[in-house]
């Protein structure tokens, strides 16, 4: 996973006045699992369609294994796709669906059938080979869609929200199977999704997009622990943000002056005095107490609501200035806290758990983000 295999360089696409993708560059290694995530309309599906050749990029280049592919017509690109709607051919049997791509490549009948049957077997759907695809369950149809693409032995597989048509239980089961399949085959997956859990549990690297721009590219841990922009922090969720101005040094310590008081910043803060900054603190790093004086940074809040989330509980707090904070507690800590809704509580955290967001968009390793 060292060499660049699939390279997207400055892809851009507009429809009239609407900018679908402003600037998208990404180097993908062989066998890498890339998830592209973002809210609807962020340009993630358009990017995938440009890769497949279903949309022509206004600008930019795509190279696969050193060869430019962005000028090839759809049918000459070796980038099969698994569709959100699956797009199986209802007038063909399961086997005919799987054989279709091979037939288009002129593979002889016997060979076609052998390879299709191999994949039906591998995905556990050979019993349905002669059935109409309309008579299969959601999970079975999903497997047919996968088999139809994988039978072509592609170097890159594109997936457009492939699990969104499945019920939650089936989707989680397929997630595991997809990851296993990708590891075994060693092929590159480019996976578009709006689901955090899919992106974070499957991908080697996650690309977060918003309004046609790449907000951040990084490993799931990177993005989860160190979101670089307010958008990513909010999109990932479970992060409290405090805005303010950086104050001058006091005893080699740096502070941020927020509307709810002064909070200490971690030691490494490169910002000059007076600079506007956004401090982010993960919900699980915030402690909540009913008496003050427990932590380094402390803000008095009102407990607004509790949100039960299994083993943990999210407490939604509001500061005196009306700012929202979120703290994540274990169930038993909540029992000890003994605070009811509307009670006055104190949120505190260690300075090292807070980090400043990069307000200015910077170049990231392997990306070039230019202003359009």
């Amino acid at each position, binding site marked *: 996973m060292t060499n660049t295999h699939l390279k997207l360089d400055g892809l851009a696409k507009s429809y009239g006045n609407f900018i679908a993708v402003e600037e998208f560059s990404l180097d993908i290694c062989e066998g890498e699992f890339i998830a592209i995530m973002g809210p609807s309309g962020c340009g993630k599906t358009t990017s995938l369609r440009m890769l*497949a*050749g*279903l949309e022509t990029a206004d600008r930019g280049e795509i190279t696969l294994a050193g060869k430019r592919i962005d000028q090839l*017509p*759809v*049918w*000459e*690109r070796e*980038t*099969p*796709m698994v*569709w959100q*709607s699956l*797009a*199986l*051919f*209802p*007038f*063909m*049997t*399961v086997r*005919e669906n799987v054989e*279709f*791509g091979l037939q*288009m*490549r002129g593979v002889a009948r016997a060979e076609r059938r052998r390879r299709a049957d191999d994949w039906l077997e591998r995905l556990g759907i050979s019993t349905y080979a*002669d*059935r*109409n*695809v*309309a*008579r299969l369950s959601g999970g079975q149809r999903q497997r047919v869609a996968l088999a*139809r*693409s994988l039978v*072509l032995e592609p170097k890159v597989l594109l997936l457009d929200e492939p699990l969104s048509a499945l019920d939650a239980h089936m989707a989680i089961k397929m997630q595991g199977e997809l990851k296993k399949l990708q590891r075994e085959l060693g092929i590159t997956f480019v996976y578009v999704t709006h689901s955090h859990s899919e992106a974070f549990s499957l991908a080697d690297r996650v690309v977060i997009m918003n309004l046609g721009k790449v907000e951040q590219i990084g490993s799931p841990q990177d993005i989860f622990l160190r979101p670089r922009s307010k958008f990513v922090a909010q999109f990932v969720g479970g992060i409290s943000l405090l805005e303010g101005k950086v104050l001058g040094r006091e005893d080699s310590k740096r502070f941020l002056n927020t509307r709810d008081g002064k909070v200490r910043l971690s030691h490494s803060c490169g910002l000059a005095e007076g600079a506007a900054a956004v401090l982010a603190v993960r919900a699980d790093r915030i402690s909540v107490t009913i008496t003050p004086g427990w932590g380094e940074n402390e803000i008095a809040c009102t407990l607004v609501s509790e949100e039960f989330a299994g083993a943990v509980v999210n407490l939604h707090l509001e500061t005196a200035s009306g700012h929202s904070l979120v703290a994540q507690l274990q169930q038993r800590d909540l029992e000890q806290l003994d605070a009811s809704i509307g009670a006055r509580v104190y949120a505190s955290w260690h300075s090292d758990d807070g980090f400043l967001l990069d307000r200015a968009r910077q170049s990231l390793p392997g990306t070039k983000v230019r202003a359009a």
Partner: protein
Amino acid sequence: MNSPALPARTSGRRLPFLFRRTWPALWILPMPVWLLLFFAVPLGLLVAISFWSVVNYRLTPDATLAAWRHVLGLDFLWASFWRSYGLSMASAVVISLLAFPASYAMAFVAAPRQRLILLGLAIAPFFTSYLVRIYSWQVFLTEGGVISSIVQAFGGKGDSLLNTYFALFLGHATLALPVVLILQTIALANVDRTGISAAANLGARPRAILFRVILPAARPGLTLGLLFAFLLSYAEFVSASYLGGGAFQTLPILVTDLVRAGQQWPRAAVVSLLMIASLLVTAFVTVLWAYREKG
């Protein structure tokens, strides 16, 4: 819906029990009534008349197989039958093929708004009577008519084009082409676009996409278009009579001939029943094929 638990006096507009129970039936009723009055009853009458006899040019209730024996014994009956069937089927196929490029363009090239305008234009001929449209073809096709004058101006012979299969076909197309255009366009417009993209993504070139994906997906609608063109052409009398003339004795012409020559209503009924039977068989087989599924 009125809940049974709700006391009657709280819902001011609660309808009488009988009316509530019959309300859905009232909406469905016109259809079976229509079919009964205008299809089942005339069909029954037709069957009955085929067993009657004609005495002194007057239709007389009877229970005789005379009309059936006579008609089935006619040496030109089967020739007429196959001519009618073959010509109508040929017209249906040619009309479908002619309509297809236009339907394809309306479904895949035209923007939704343009498609509406084009479909509107396709329906426009229905604003004039069919008979008027057939008469205007006569003006074009007859000797000394529009086409023959043009041909003569270029030194050709300029014979009348009437009483040819070409003229008969023009009549069939005038009747059926707009219907086929509409059915085909709807069928093609409803083909799953993602399926088309998926086929291209799997390596299908435009030709393969047309033959392997679009045509199979649109098959029910395209087949129905063909079937309608056939039904309309098969039962067609006006152009068979005015454009085809005496050159083609089709079954509808035979029916009128039998009635005109000696008020042979029972014999005409037998021919009509043969037509209906062959239509039903054709329609049944075609629809079965159109909606056939794999696996």
